[in-house]
């Protein structure tokens, strides 16, 4: 047994302790023996969210995916292209790529770029706060995906295919690794309203339903009483509910005793009722942003996205495996009409993102937490409707931070206009492979047998981009 697995066993032990003493027979043995096997009996008896060992030593334990739904423009954010000034309004052959809609000549960025940090990476004026964190950030400038439409690309970014038939990455992570806190869902999706496509973006698909993402609509506020369905008991006082649950437990134990005193599934449900009881308080506490200091809240600033970022930090701190924070309802970054509209969105995310990175760092959580920033695709350097930009799947930027990623670097490049990725191209499949790798999972080994074959998040694709690792 190498160190990794020992470490993981400890985590499992801890988690069992967290689950309370309960009935002895549920036991360590059963859970430990279960390991990779997913027989039906195992599914039914063991808590499928129990932490499981990674394939190899993980660099990160948690993922926070900051999803700029709608598709932010790379040439206005993290991929400066001076050539756009020079060729503004023209359409040289290299800028004559097909996207979703009709576009015209090149459109220079209305935003100025500036060098930040020791690394001197250029960031546009849209992200002055993020700029101050640039030495912790690894910008991938050579992302590309398959289709310049929101629906298929959102599905690709989340589940690795363009149709709604596969599990989301968060579901895969839960399936592969479990979650560290059994009193909270392991994969949480914060979005005010719903992104386009909606629930299929966090679907478990053919994986067991327990791996589905839990969507929390925090458009009004992060309300601890409503974030998880039925988390709040409004019928009985806590004492009365405890008394009720004691009776239920006693009746269940009598039921079990009459059946020979041993049945993993019956025991699991008894445990699960106790867990639910504890979850009522724990989950509500985690989502109670008012427990943060005034200083912290001010650092994050106000607004839905800031609340989402702060909640994300509290969640990973509590052991949640993956948190997605979507920018907002629909597809807000979809600025076809006027790219200057990016400024409003950037203003809402810039300070909270920087605060999140600094907060995690200060709590020594950044090393364990992989932050992923980006949309479902980028935007064209050529104009649509005069001052807007169309969808662009040929090339776009995303960035990673924390979780074993090398900060202060850029990777890959687009062409001189920022249209198509040309150097060290990174497909979404490659990104997925890389994220799984950082989490200690081999994307070719994380498989689930379904419909007569083994499925993977990366299907038959994916290259781990080792160059990004610290």
């Amino acid at each position, binding site marked *: 047994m190498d160190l990794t697995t020992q470490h993981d066993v400890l985590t499992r032990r801890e988690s069992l302790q967290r689950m309370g003493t309960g009935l002895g027979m549920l036991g360590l043995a059963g859970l430990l023996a279960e390991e990779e096997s997913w027989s039906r009996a195992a599914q039914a008896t063991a808590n499928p969210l129990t932490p499981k060992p990674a394939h190899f030593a993980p660099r990160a334990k948690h993922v926070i995916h900051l999803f700029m739904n709608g598709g932010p423009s790379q040439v206005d954010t993290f991929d400066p292209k001076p050539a756009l000034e020079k060729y503004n309004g023209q359409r040289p052959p290299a800028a004559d790529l097909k996207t979703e809609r009709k576009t015209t000549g090149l459109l220079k960025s209305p935003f100025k770029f500036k060098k930040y940090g020791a690394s001197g990476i250029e960031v546009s004026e849209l992200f002055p706060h993020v700029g101050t964190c640039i030495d912790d950030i690894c910008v991938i400038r050579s992302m590309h995906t398959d289709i310049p439409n929101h*629906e298929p690309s959102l599905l690709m970014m989340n589940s690795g295919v363009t149709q709604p038939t596969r599990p989301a990455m968060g579901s895969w992570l839960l399936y592969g690794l479990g979650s560290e806190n059994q009193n909270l869902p392991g994969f949480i999706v914060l979005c005010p309203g719903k992104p386009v496509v909606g629930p299929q973006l966090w679907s478990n698909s053919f994986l067991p339903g327990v791996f589905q993402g839990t969507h929390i609509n925090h458009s009004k506020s992060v309300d601890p009483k409503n974030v998880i369905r039925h988390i709040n008991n409004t019928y009985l006082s806590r004492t009365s509910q405890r008394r009720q649950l004691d009776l239920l437990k006693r009746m269940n134990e009598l039921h079990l005793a009459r059946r020979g005193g041993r049945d993993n599934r019956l025991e699991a449900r008894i445990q699960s009722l106790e867990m639910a009881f504890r979850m009522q308080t724990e989950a509500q506490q985690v989502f109670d942003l008012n427990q943060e200091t005034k200083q912290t809240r001010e650092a994050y600033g106000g607004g839905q996205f800031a609340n989402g970022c702060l909640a994300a930090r509290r969640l990973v701190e509590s052991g949640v495996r993956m948190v997605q924070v979507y920018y907002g309802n629909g597809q807000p970054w979809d600025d076809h009409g006027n790219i200057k509209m990016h400024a409003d969105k950037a203003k809402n995310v810039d300070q909270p993102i920087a605060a999140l990175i600094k907060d995690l760092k200060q709590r020594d959580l950044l090393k364990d937490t992989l932050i992923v920033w980006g949309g479902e695709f980028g935007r064209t350097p050529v104009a649509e409707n005069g001052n807007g930009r169309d969808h662009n799947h040929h090339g776009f930027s995303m960035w990673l931070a924390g979780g074993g990623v090398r900060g202060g670097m850029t990777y890959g490049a687009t062409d001189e206009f920022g249209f198509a990725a040309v150097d060290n191209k990174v497909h979404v499949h490659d990104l997925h492979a890389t994220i799984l790798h950082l989490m200690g999972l081999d994307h070719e080994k994380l498989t689930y047998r379904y419909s007569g074959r083994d499925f993977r998040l990366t299907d*038959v694709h994916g290259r781990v981009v080792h160059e990004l690792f610290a």
Partner: protein
Amino acid sequence: MKSEDMFRERLAAVTLLLVMGIPGFVLAEDGAAQTLKPEHVEFFEKKIRPVLLRHCYKCHSADAKNVKGGLLLDARETVLKGGDSGPAVVPRNVAKSLLISALRQDGLEMPPEGKLPDAVIADFVKWIEMGAPDPRVGTATAKSQIDFEQAGKFWAFQPIEKPQVPEVRRTDWPRTDIDHFTMSRMEQMRLVPMAAATKREWIRRATFDLIGLPPQPKHIDAFVADESPQAYDTVIERLLKSEHYGERWGRYWLDVARYSEDQAHTFSVRKNTNGFRYRDWVVSAFNSDMPYDKFVKLQIAGDLIGADGEGSYDHLIALGFFGLGAQYYKNSDAAQAAADELDDRVDTLTRGFLGITVSCARCHDHKFDPIPTQDYYSLAGIFRSSKLNNAPLCAPEDIRTYNTGRERIKKSEAAVKKFLAEAKETAAASKVGDISKYMQAVWRYQVAAANGRRAKSSDLARQAGLNAFLLKRWIGFLDPKRKGQVSELDDWFALKPAAAEPIDSDSALPPAVAEVADGFQQRLQRLLGNDDGVATTNLVDTGGDKSHQAGSPRFVTPLVTKVRPTSGIDVDIRQAKQLFLVVSDGGNGKSCDHADWIAPRLIGSQGELDLTQVKWKSLEGFSGGRINKNYQGKPIRAGGKTYPRGVGVHAPTTIVYDLPPGYERFRAIGALDNSGSDQGGCGDQASVQFSVYTEKPVTGPVAPGKDLLSIVLGKDGPLAVSDKDLENFLTGPKREQLRTLRSEFEDAKKSAPAMYAIAHAYAEGSVADMRVFIRGNPARKREVAPRRFLRILAGEQRPLYKQGSGRKELSEDIASPDNPLTARVMVNRVWQHHFGRGIVATPSNFGKLGEAPTHPALLDYLAARFIESGWSIKTLHRLIMRSATYRLSSTLHAANAEIDADNRFLWKMSRQRLDVEAWRDALLDVSGKLDRTLGGPSTNLADANNVRRTVYAQISRHELDSLLRLFDFPDANITSAQRTETTVPQQQLFVLNSPFMVAQAKAFSARLHREVTDGNQDRIRRAFALAYGRPPTEIELQLGLDYLAGKPDPDNKLTLWESYAQVLLGGNEFIYLD
């Protein structure tokens, strides 16, 4: 022709053949042509082979774990043959050798770990130039060739033969043949069967098994009391006759059919509003014990088999199996989406009916089962030759009646709308001549108000002979607060009524007021009169360019809409060099914006120049332009009038002309073409705006202020009348006319028949074979895959499907007693739902990767009996449920568990958790709330008042109901053979805190108080009888009594009885079935 050229040409032909998938002759010929010189061999061995070995073989050799791209580089033959993209090497032709472009990272990028040194690439170039000499002989092939003969020996492909019933040592135990099979396995495994379940346990098991509901106390009591030998059969027969049987077993099939009533995507989610008819058909097929072979055939080819009798449409409804299949988003990659849809059909068909995973062969031959890629496309071609069809479920005359009714509604509605639009316009326009009077009346009103008196607008109206309603609107329109909003009224607001002297109702007004009011009225009148060909708003008609800023418009029309479909254009163009004719979408999007530049002409001292005779310099925008035709190529028509000359475009579009010298004015009529404005929906909202520039446009064509006509006559303007009020403004015959039109519309709506029922069915489409897609990529095709059945089941010489799409032949091949899979798969599904595990534990995968049967002989016995019985599922239930095996208790046995912990060999009954349907239905039933109505449109589970059975819930692919999802209901995007079973705290939060659970607890408590008026003991006994089908034990009774004797917390919203009822409903005994 030189010999080398001939060689190349031959090679090209060969390549073509290879790409088309016709292997063979060239290779031999080419191989023979090769003469190897020793120095060439040396070059290959030194420079080429090591590189191939080190960098390529991992993915491109016969020994590769996964051969990538179908390319093998470990033999000369396969190098020349190439992979999916074509030949890797064309000897002496570097340009055509894909290997080189891949090494140069030019398109393909190989090897994936990084570009090789230039020197190495140069060696490969040299090697190809010398003819790619290659001493490696042999025909290395990837290891995916299927040996059908060998594969056919696999148990699942063997014919079904009814086996001998095995002898057993323990002869006193078996009740039926089934028990001989199970006992025989137990004896082999040294297992002993458990005792029989108690009668109470058995009837609870049987009742949930067959109808998905708990047994009623009266049925339990009768069964316990019935000591006759037929006691068990009586219960089985009663349950099989229950109409709730179909609800339970139909739902199992709906999992397989991935039944849902919508689609997963978000943009225009398509609801299959009649989807429930398929669900109801399935339920009733089970209730009527429809022979399973017929059940299969109808779902695949009901339309081709035809109706059972006149007026029966079930054969169409049955096609919902495919008709409700996935439809994907086709906006960008339609070919891929269509291919994915075919995959849904093939996958659901083969896993559902045959228990094999043909879908694996979409990209390459199945790695484990004998399914070549061609077989996949043979089946896919059948569906490609069919199409979705919303089939009417009524006689043709009913459709006609319905259509006539709809037509009448549409016509009468259009007539009302048209009348209103015209009448309003007329009504408003007819009052333009009163504008000055209205304004003067407003003056009187405002002066009075400024002097602290309140004038009544109705009085003022009467005195001036004006309409009181409109005067009110004018008062609002000219309110001082609105100053500055309409620049044409600046003069008016400059008059300042607040500072004016008080006036009497009949005294004259200051002349300036009348002058301004008259001026405004005349302005409107001029605008109204200028619809056709005369200037309206000339921004810079200044002669020369005194105030003209380069790049700003010279002329802008008002918005041109359906109501005012033309606007005259007359522009001063002296000194200009170019003319930019811009038509914009009018600011509200570009729907239906078909625009015309009618009779565009230049006018100068030397005469007119017709611009339709001049070629423009450029045209850019939404559309091309058409001379003397509208955007759609039809005659130009605007406002119902046809115009012979003009340029038809679609906004937004800009046309640029170079101006010849000597012209002073440009004139035209800007028009909204009828081809756009007559379209339903967007046509009514269509608006365009024409502007003329003489330099490249810099500023947008925004009119100075809003279009005055719209402001005054538009729907919010002071002269506008609402639809509702219009009638009051109409007089005499007009008023009568509107009333008649409206009552005709109302009558049409009332008398029209409701929409007839439809089925989401399938129909024959354009019939054609598909070609194999290379690696599943629809853009790259290989050989034709004729429509026919699977080779492993029907043999190499299987017939081609010739009747239309082939669905009928396919259905017959599947629902055939000779098909080794169909009957086995179905009896195994039924077995699984009785015992919690199938004889084959992977019910939709009988292939190599599925689990082997635990009782192969029993499976065949059941399948054979199933076919003998005429594919009767109810007979199968009887067969199973009469057995001693089915009667076993679920008790634990330590020694048995040592040998077979999973109970694969059926020494006991496996304890099962109720699925979400049975659990929810049981909660409703026990609490006395269940509505047992059958069938009909689906209901919403999120509605707390929904007390229908769960099978009638809306099933969404887009967003599955949260309760269903929480309790392991399958994702309806894909066929499902068995439910996963998870136990997570979120489920228990539902049990503890959900309004649904609390509602059932309250109802259960109320029922108990209703049925047992006195005494907690009796009430507890009744509660146990209803919830668990047994009396409570002494301890349980005491626990209950103690709990109920507790001190209630006044803040609680539940009584002690209600919270006790919740405990009983939330218990393990309620959700687990022994």
